[in-house]
Structure formats: structure tokens, C-alpha cells
């Protein structure tokens, strides 16, 4: 544990975050990589001390490093590796389909956010029930049409 390494961890998180907030999958992957490194460093630092490699018979009088964070970090590294490979496959597939690795906005969400705020109710396709209810109201307040056609 040292101040410099703690700062490095923080910086890795910061830089990674910066990249995560972009729209290129490659950058996001790199950002995740940086954050992953940061997290591993954090794990390592959580051991709290610097020491010699924890090998039975070689430690002698010296302080051994904490083996626990090492094992945890190792697991985290390997998992991150697998997942990164998968993300790259996504980028690859995205390239196959669109020729780019842009993370597109969700279409349905955009549609709802864009059309609904401007359009009136009548223009929105799915409000069939509501307009039917309005028609029913029409007929109840003076319209002539009977509600149910006879059997």
C-alpha cells in the first residue's frame, strides 16, 4: 500500500470511466480494461502490505505478501480476459452488421422519447383503447348511436 499506487488506482478508474462514457465499443472495452486493472490493483492493495512472494520455505524472516488478494486478483484477471474476448466478439459482429462498432441508442426508447413529447394523443398509434373510450363518451353525451348492435 502506498499513496502513489492508490493514486494510480484512482486514476485508472477515472480514465476508464472517461472511456466508458463514449460511444465506441472499442473505447468502452479499453475503458473496461483500465477499470479492471484499477480494480485488480485495488484488490492487491487491499492486502495492505508489500512483501516477498508467499512461497513456503522462501519467506524466512521477511514479511510475506498477502496471498489472498493475489488469488482474488488472479481470478478477476482471468474472468476479465474471457469477458473482454466476448466483448470483442460483439464488436466483431457489430462490424459485420454495420461496418462499425458504434453503440447505438435504443431505437424504441428514442422513439418514445422523441415522438411522444411532441405528438398529440391522436397521432400515437397504440392509443386505440383511449380513442374508443372517447367515442363512447361522445355517444353518451348526446350522440344517437346505440351502443350495442342487436343480437
Amino acid at each position, binding site marked *: 500500500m502506498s499513496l502513489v499506487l492508490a493514486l494510480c488506482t484512482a486514476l485508472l478508474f477515472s480514465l476508464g470511466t472517461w472511456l466508458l462514457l463514449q460511444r465506441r465499443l472499442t473505447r468502452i472495452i479499453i475503458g*473496461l480494461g483500465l477499470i*479492471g486493472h484499477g480494480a485488480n490493483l485495488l484488490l492487491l492493495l487491499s492486502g495492505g502490505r508489500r512483501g516477498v512472494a508467499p512461497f513456503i520455505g522462501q519467506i524466512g524472516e521477511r514479511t510475506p505478501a498477502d496471498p489472498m488478494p493475489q488469488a*482474488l486478483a488472479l*481470478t478477476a484477471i482471468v474472468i476479465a480476459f474471457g469477458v473482454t474476448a466476448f466483448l470483442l466478439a460483439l464488436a466483431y459482429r457489430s462490424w459485420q*452488421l454495420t461496418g462499425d462498432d458504434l453503440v447505438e441508442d*435504443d431505437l424504441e426508447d428514442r422513439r418514445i422519447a422523441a415522438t411522444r413529447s411532441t405528438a398529440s394523443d391522436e397521432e400515437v398509434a397504440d392509443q386505440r383503447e383511449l380513442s374508443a373510450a372517447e367515442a363512447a363518451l361522445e355517444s353518451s353525451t348526446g350522440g344517437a348511436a346505440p351502443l350495442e348492435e342487436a343480437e
Partner: protein
Amino acid sequence: MMRVLLPLPVVLPLFAAGCSMAAARRRWLQRLIGIAALSACVAAAVAILLHADREGPAAAFMGGWDAPVGISLVADRLTGLMLVVAAPVLLAVLVFATGQPGTEKEQPAFHPVYLVLAAGINLSFLTGDLFNLFVAFEMMLTASYVLITIGGRRDQVRTGMTYVVINLIASTLLVATIGLLYAATGTVNMADLAGRIGHLPGGVRVAFALLLFVVFGIKAAVFPLFFWLPDSYPSAPTAVTAVFAGLLTKVGVYCLIRTQTLMVAPGDRPIGFMLAIAALTMVVGVLGAIAQNDIKRILSFHIVSQIGYMVLGIALFSVAGLAAAMLYLVNQIVLKSTLLLTAGIVDHAAGSSRLAEVGGLARRHPIVGWLFLLPALSLAGIPPLSGFVAKLSVIDAGFADHAWIAVGVAIAVSILTLYSMTKIWGGAFWGEVEVVAEPSDAMSRRYGATAPMLASTAALVVLSLALAVFAGPLLELCQRAAADLLSPTAYISAVLP
């Protein structure tokens, strides 16, 4: 006994996954392996629950390393309950998938990945070690990444990116949290942590509690951390969405329950914060559902909304509240899976799940109508279905603890839930018959889906009805489990004798 039993729900599917991978070219063998393994999980889960309920929490120590040195699997009532509910859902969805044209038949990866998903879910419930929980999450999530993009359509890739990236961020946060916890306490065993966190200064304890809440909150999809869910779930193949909807977020909720009760001292619990989050989750989720026009999307937003009820139950930190949350959890697992399977059947029978494109299904395929209607009403909390009991228990617990506003919101939201369920019913099941494309096989044209699809969905519907019939014993079980959670000495002493 538990030594053998506890690891089985994890290791069996993993072993089966290995075999399934090796048998990548023989689909029938893969099916056999998958169904056999998951059936065995059902049996093991039931045995675990019975044992946990009768004898109290039990632990198994991996590699014979006693806690907190090694990894321990712990089963208390909550764990047993979750396993018992998850196992049949997993099995049913797998059966559904085998009856569905598409993914399962075309992708040799489906079965092994699905089995890993099952193992990951089960491990999340079982593990008594925080880092192992991370590993379980990763198993589950990696499998889910694969499943959500399997098929590689353009929209899947797009939404897959959102899903994967957000979950990776959550995972990284979890690792960081574990690192920080280890730095502060020197252990990652949850039972051990329970004791050690108490020695930390106050601000740090609260910070850890909130950090854990946020970390698992992302997985559980609470406000404002849920955005990824409705964007990504609907694009996965139906069976996959069903199991995601039923189980993945619920694993997050399980973890919320577990960590907030076990590792957070009563004085440090962010009760007000959680209540606010719960209310916002319910409202924003259900409003999202109302705004949607696709069955799967509506249901996806409902996942979010319903999570709010569970958080509400948890936030009360009373026996009644936690029991209500658990009951809700159990219900939602079954209901959400069922509803999404039904959405899949709609999609299969009519060629689309968009409300504007389909209609009149109840008349065309009455069976499908029932398969939707019952769980949908249950979801909306209509008595005497199981969802009602769950909702009643939440309201009851909330009023008992004077959480007036949150419960008021919960009640108001449930009418909105009903509204959006009728939106599906009115849009897809009522009206003139409209279809985009007809399925190709005769069975599907007549009944709406193939036999495995119908049978598995019907089995889940029956399960949900059974949950209603046996709601009494179930709630009592939940209350016992909740009492365990609130005084976790038995849990801790099972792990650290």
C-alpha cells in the same frame, strides 16, 4: 448429508455443461443431459430446503477448508426457498426452449451455456463467500451475455452491448467493493464479515452498506440503476428472456436481502433511502411499462416495477417485511418467467409481440389466452392468485411499520400494473384476429405453440396456482426465513462453529 447435497445444484450443472460441450454435435444428447441435470437440481433443491427448514442453516466447506479460510456453501431457509423456486423454472424454460424453433436447435452453445447459467444462479444462492458470489455472478452473467446475443441479430448486438457493458461495470464495482471490504476487515466470508464489519467506524459501515446496496441494486435493477434492463431483455430469444426475467434480477434481490441483513448492522441500514428507492422503482418502472407497445418490453418494465415491491419489503427490516419480500420474490420468479414464455408463444403463434401487429389471440388460441391471463392477473395482484397474497403481505407489513407513503405508492402502482396488463390483453388477446406470420407446424397452428412450449408454460402456471393454494405454509416458511435473517446467529454459527 449436506456435505454432499449443498454443492450438487452447482457442480452437477457444471459437470453436465462440460459433457454438453463435448457433445456439441448431438442435440438429443445435449437435451438429455440438460434435462437430467436440471431435474436432479430440482430434487437436490427440495432436499436442501427440507433439511434447512427442519435443521436450520447448514454449511459445506469446499475442499475441507473450514470457514473463513476456505469457501463455504451455506443453506438456510432463504437459500433453500430460492433454490426450490429457481430449479423448476430453469427446467421448464429449458423444456420450452427445446420445443421452440430457432436458437436451441441452431446453436450448439445453447445447452452448455444454459447449464452454466443455472449453476451460476444456484451458486449465487448458495455461496457464503462474497468473492465466490462474484464468481457466481460472473458465471451467470457471462452465460447471460452469450444467451442474450445468441443468434447475433442486429438489435441483439446493439442491446447486447448495453447489457454486457453495464453488467461488467457492476461486476467491477463488486470486485472493488470486495477489495475494499477485504482491506478494511481482512476477510471475504460473509458470516465472518458480519462480525468484523461491526468493528469498523460508523461512517465506513454505512458507506459499505450503501455501496453493497448500489452494487447489487444494479443487478436487481432498482431506480436509477435499471435502465439497461428494458433495453436489453426483450431482444434475447424468448426462453432466454424468460429465465432472465424470472431469475437474474431476483438474484440481485436475493443478494440485497442477504447482504443488507447479514452484513449491515441494524443501526446502519439505509431504511429511508431504500424506501424512497423502492417507491421510485415501482413508479418509474410501471410508467415505463405503460409507455411501451411491445409485450416483451412491457413485461421487462414490469420486472423493474415489481423489484420495487421487494425492496420495499426489505427496507422494512421486519420479519413481516422480509417475509413479504421473499414471498414476492418467489412469486415473481414464477410469474415473470411464465409471462415471458407466454409472450414467446404469442410471438411464435402470431409472428410478433408488438401490440399493434397482433390481436384476437384469446379467440384463436384459448389455451394461450389462459396461459397469459392467469399469471397476468396474478402479477397485478388479483385475488385469489398468488400475486395477491404477496401484495397483501407487502401492504400489511408496510402499514405495520407505518411506511405510509411507500405502501400508498405500492397500492397506486398496482392499479397501473393492472392497466398495463389489460393493455396487453386488450391489444393482443382481444380484438380482431391479426397475425404477422403463422407458425409452420400443424400443432402450433392449432394450439398456438408446440407441445413442449405449451406444457412447460402450463406447468409454470400450475406452479403459480400452487403458490396461491399453498400461500399459507409458504408465507410461514418465509417468516421463519425472515426471522433467521434478522437474527443471523444460527447462520453465522453454522459457518463459523
